[in-house]
């Protein structure tokens, strides 16, 4: 953090926030990294990567989508080479800018769905990027509902080949990442037909582009699907197949195979595929979703102590915007959520490892629970994090709208995760199905999986809180969440309620485990309280409904919540510092460690192409009769069409003011004289004022003439 532009120090308004943290920031960072060793390693990797000019993100915000794509390819290739040199496995910190993300999914799908022969044949090629792959499942007209996919793979006994086809436009593969320009191969999901009978969805390994020159193979129509809200560095693509033939061995055959005579054999349990989906969801939450919220909090909170606005007391200097209660109420719950989600990811991880171990032994009992948990967390966390990043962006006022703040691109990338890897509403409904089944089990007295065991404890009383302070007792708010979660009723609402209960309960447990870290435990307890009480404050009706909370208790909870904001405010900056994002990773003019916000905004803006592309004006004039004075010419950098002449007049009427003097006409370049048009333009008689302006003009004059 030592490198400050132009040797400026840390902005004093930000510096003072770091003077007296109630806990050790470094210690908290190591706790978040799960060990000082990990922190050290992460920082070393970051240092190596970020100091390499090839990974510079200086131009990130100025590039067009095609430029972004090319940069991503260049950086990915460079990273691959660099990692090979260093002998490292990964260099994660700059993942935002890289391409070939689906190449990994491609490899995983071969690992998970392929036979050992197939793995041995294709994985080494993929590892060396001799083939670049994508995973083509989603179609133009079909996403969530896999059975509805229309692409077909028909087995032809005579040639021992599968013939792949896109029967209609809605069956075109659409959206797969890396497909548009990069991929040479695709794992294509298609309906398998043998002798006229449909056997359902199966994965096929399909070469789509020539390995020599990158051109599409015969029968393949492939391309980019066009610009998106974000992630324009990725070439999401379309793929249309017309009688594309692949050998029988190209069906990924771990779970089913087609024999030479056309008979179909199923083997093993495909249930394990669920595990792959769960892995993707868990990884996505940990690596993309949660860090995005943490970054947004870092940017918005640092900026909120640098930005000053209005007086809190007359005569005082303008106050830091973070001192306004309304600003605290926007940002601090996001900060608390980031910590809550960090701890729930730990929980999910443990749960997942345990489930994996069981599944590897052939016990699939915990799979439905694991699947439901991952689904509901996927939906709730992506929703909350995406919304949270937008809250942070808007809390930065106008400057949050500038790409230089880093926030718009963070949002645009993150919000896509609400749709991919399982659309959120569908995720919630899947989890709801599991919950309803458990609820049924509970009512018939049968045992329940651990994460929903609370459904069978039916001690629904009333909240016992007697004063405001009682709401800082974890038993009190955990009880409230538990009550809400176990109340059956509106289904779409039940799932998040269940999820929040687990998150709150787990946060409380995580805080308890910090017994050796008194100071950190104290601030984490505050954050846990804030997270829980913010949820009660936001959904008060759920807790008041059926009288679990009384009206007075609702007031107490609210008061307790609002008081906490001021408490956490004091440590807000150390709490985001602990996330330990380097400036290179944030790439934000508002959020850098030194808080030199305005200087940086000004310097970065100078680099905008709009400012650097010097207009080639010198010595050039327009061919029209306005020549140098043609407004079109200086705006458009090209000669004006005849239609532009009329409005763009520089009449001689406005001389005599500073800045209004006309320049002496420079002689026209040779050869352009004849281009100068003659004749009068309609400008000379001017235009009539539109009625409403004329009216206003008259009214304004009339009002002046009155005494």
């Amino acid at each position, binding site marked *: 953090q030592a490198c400050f532009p132009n040797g400026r120090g840390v902005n004093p308004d930000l510096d003072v926030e770091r003077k007296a943290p109630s806990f050790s920031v470094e210690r908290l960072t190591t706790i978040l990294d799960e060990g000082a060793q990990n922190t050290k390693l992460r920082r070393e990797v970051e240092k190596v990567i970020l100091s390499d000019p090839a990974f510079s993100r200086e131009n990130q915000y100025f590039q067009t989508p095609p430029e972004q794509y*090319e940069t991503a*390819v260049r950086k990915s*290739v460079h990273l*691959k*080479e660099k990692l090979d040199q260093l002998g490292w496995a990964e260099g994660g910190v700059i993942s935002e800018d890289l391409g070939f993300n689906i190449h990994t999914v491609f490899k995983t799908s071969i690992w998970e769905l392929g036979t050992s022969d197939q793995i041995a044949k294709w994985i080494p090629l993929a590892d060396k990027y001799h083939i670049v792959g994508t995973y083509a499942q989603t179609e133009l*007209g079909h*996403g*969530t*509902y896999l059975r509805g996919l229309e692409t077909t793979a028909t087995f032809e006994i005579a040639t021992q080949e599968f013939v792949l086809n896109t029967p209609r*436009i809605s069956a075109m593969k659409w959206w797969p990442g890396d497909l548009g320009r990069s991929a040479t191969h695709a794992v294509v999901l298609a309906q398998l037909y043998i002798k006229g009978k449909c056997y359902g969805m199966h994965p096929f390994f399909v070469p789509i582009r020539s390995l020599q020159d990158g*051109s*599409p193979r015969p029968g393949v129509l492939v391309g*980019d*699907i*066009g*610009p998106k*809200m974000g992630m324009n560095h990725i*070439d999401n693509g379309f793929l249309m197949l017309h009688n594309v033939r692949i050998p029988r061995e190209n069906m990924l055959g771990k779970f089913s195979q087609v024999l030479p005579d056309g008979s179909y054999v199923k083997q093993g349990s495909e249930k394990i595929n669920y595990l792959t989906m769960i892995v993707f969801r868990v990884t996505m939450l940990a690596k993309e979703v949660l860090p995005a919220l943490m970054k947004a909090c870092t940017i918005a909170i640092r900026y909120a102590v640098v930005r000053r606005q209005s*007086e*809190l007391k007359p005569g005082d200097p*303008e106050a830091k915007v973070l*001192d*306004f*209660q309304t*600003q605290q109420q926007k940002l601090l719950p996001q900060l608390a959520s980031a910590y809550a989600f960090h701890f729930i990811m730990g929980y999910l991880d443990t749960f997942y490892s345990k489930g994996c171990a069981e599944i590897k032994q052939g016990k699939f009992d915990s799979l439905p629970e694991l699947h439901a948990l991952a689904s509901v967390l996927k939906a709730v966390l992506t929703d909350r994090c995406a919304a949270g990043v*937008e809250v942070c962006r808007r809390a930065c*006022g*106008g400057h949050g*709208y*500038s*790409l*230089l703040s880093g926030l718009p691109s963070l949002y645009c990338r993150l*919000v896509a995760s609400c749709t991919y890897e399982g659309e*959120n509403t569908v995720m919630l409904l899947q989890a709801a199905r599991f919950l309803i089944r458990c609820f049924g089990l509970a009512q018939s007295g049968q045992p329940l999986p651990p994460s929903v065991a609370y459904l069978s404890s039916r001690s629904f009383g009333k909240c016992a809180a007697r004063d405001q302070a009682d709401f800082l007792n974890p038993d009190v708010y955990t009880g409230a969440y538990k009550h809400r979660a176990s109340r059956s009723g509106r289904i*779409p609402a039940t799932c998040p309620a269940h999820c929040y209960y687990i998150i709150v309960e787990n946060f409380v447990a995580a805080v308890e485990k910090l017994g050796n870290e008194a100071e950190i435990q104290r601030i984490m307890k505050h954050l846990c309280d804030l997270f829980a009480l913010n949820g009660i404050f936001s*959904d*008060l*009706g759920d807790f008041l409904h*059926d009288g679990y909370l009384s009206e007075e208790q609702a007031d107490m909870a609210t008061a307790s919540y609002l008081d906490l904001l001021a408490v956490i405010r004091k440590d807000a900056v150390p709490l985001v510092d602990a996330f330990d994002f380097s400036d290179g990773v944030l790439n934000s003019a508002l959020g850098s460690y030194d808080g030199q916000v*305005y200087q940086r905004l000004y310097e970065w*803006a*100078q680099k905008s192409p*709009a400012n650097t592309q010097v207009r080639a004006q010198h010595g050039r004039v327009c061919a029209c009769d306005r020549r*140098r004075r043609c*407004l079109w010419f200086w*705006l458009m950098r090209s000669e004006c069409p005849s239609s532009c002449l009329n*409005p763009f*007049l*520089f009449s001689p*009427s*406005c001389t005599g003011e*500073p*800045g209004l*003097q006309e320049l002496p006409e420079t002689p026209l370049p040779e050869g352009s004289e004849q281009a100068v048009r003659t004749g009068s333009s309609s400008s000379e008689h001017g235009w009539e004022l539109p*009625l*409403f302006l004329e009216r206003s*003009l008259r009214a*304004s*004059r009339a009002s*002046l003439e009155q005494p």
Partner: protein
Amino acid sequence: MAMNSDLRKERDAASFIPELLTHVLDAGAERTRRRREIEALVLNDPDFQHEDLNFLSRSQRYEVAIRKSALMVIKLREYGIADPDEIYWFKSSVHRGRPEPLDLHLGMFLPTLLTQATPEQQDRFFMPAWNLEIIGTYAQTEMGHGTHLRGLETTATYDPATQEFILNSPTVTSIKWWPGGLGKTSNHAIVLAQLYTQGECKGLHAFIVPIRRLGTHEPLPGITVGDIGPKFGYDEMDNGYLKMDHFRIPRENMLMKYAKVEPDGTYMKPVSDKLTYGTMVFIRSIIVGDSARSLSRACTIAIRYSAVRHQSEIKPGEPEHQILDYQTQQYKLFPLLATAYAFHFVGAYMKNTYRRITGDINQGDLTQLPELHALTAGLKAFTSWCANTGIEECRMACGGHGYSRCSGLPDIYVTFTPSCTYEGENTVMMLQTARFLVKSYTQVSSGQLVSGMVSYLNDLLGQRIQPQQVAARPTAVQLNDPSSLVEVYKRRAASLVEAAAKNLQAELTRRKSKEEAWNRTSVDLVRASEAHCHYVVVKLFTAKLSEIGNPAVHAVMTNLCLLYALYGISKHTGDFLQAAILTDAQVTQVYQRVKELLAAIRPDAVTLVDAFDFHDAHLGSVLGRYDGNVYENMFAWAKKSPLNKTEVHESFHKHLKPMQAKL
């Protein structure tokens, strides 16, 4: 190409004629006709055609916008279009609801000259500006200062020796930042600066400052001006920065209709300045209208697409269903559709009120202005916040395809979202309204009745005896009667205003400073403001129903109005339960009723968005096309994408091949 059969069926099954509802939205059949006529003028004009903006770079988009703006100015004058509404229709057809570089010139620079310049100044500046020799912008916001005007740092120091003002940007934070059209387009700016004369600061005043040389357009010596860089949206707009280094302008360039500086430096105070309230009310009414229109566009796209898109079986063996048949999809979209209609009526109400009041102002009656100013602040915030969230919800309801720029939805969102910030940051706006509500509450507490939209606070007087039971009265709530729901919202507003006012009082007794107490109550105050605005919206929607004559239209609008009100209750049950306005049982009924209304509205959903009457060119969306031929056109659109210009992208040869060779 023929209309998609799903959409045709939807339209055939409608219970009402959309044209009649369009007339309601346009305030008359004749206005609908005229609007379409003007839209057709633009949309059929080959001069206004251009490449799909989604495929252009930012500087290309700026160029297209400049070209269209220039043509627009000529053609408006050629056609003699002068009515403000007609100009608005023309402009939004040219720019399809996007900003344009001349917005500030036409919308702020010219009007400010009209309202704040002396006749002499108008003579010097108005006609050149009218003829676009002078292109101006309005430079108020600074890099470090937005909301708090008194905090602006730019100075204008009067030098009697030369009879000039010296304009200066003393710090980095004082650099003017954000004004539209400032970066590249304008050659003049109206600059807001702290006036210093005879050694004293006289506060903010407006100055006409030339910034670029006429003819060459080079920045003048002492002026640093440029573009502030790429943004979330607003690619067409060259939002700019302006740094002035002891830049001199003649004394006559200060806008001196109200305040004056004499040649010797003597400062003459302005008379009353309440008139600027009028402009602010007007701009806020425009933003409320924008909220309605932007949300309507998003709803049109999402609902049409949901009727075309099929997914999963509801019953095994059936064909895949239109996603609009899923309750979860209806629950996402129909409340937003109802909101869009509600905001249309609020916008129309505000515009009418503004017109009425400007009439009064011209007769010298300013009594209603403070209330209107205070209350419109909250409505601006309330509607823009709801529309902002709503547009994103519509986008996400379109699944993956909503993320593609061909859906048009990302563009609507990024264009709309800054309205939560500009013309008054929303939280600040809510607190302005709260200030008025608290003032009215205090007035009522001291026994004085209040009038207008806050008159419900008078009801609190009769209930002084049981302070905790403000709103608790025997409840005979009719969940099927909009006017009964207006009462319910009214009581919620009353209870939250009272709670906030009491908390404020409690903080005041606990702490010394008034400002500190206000800050410590501000979350409560914002909630009170929101409840008040919510009440106003429900009330205005309900009032509109009585103006709809056609029974079929009336029936469907009544359902929408009920959905708006009941959905709002279901999202804020805490407020209604806590103040004992509704019982647990009633809240459960509300949830139930919302679901029933979704099913009731379902058959008319497509026709309800058709009635907004957006031309396909206005929607700019492949998903929202009137004919519903979504997939063919997505494919056609994608083929035009810049990445597809060559079959093999150059990065294959530049990066991929060499790497493969090395590994």
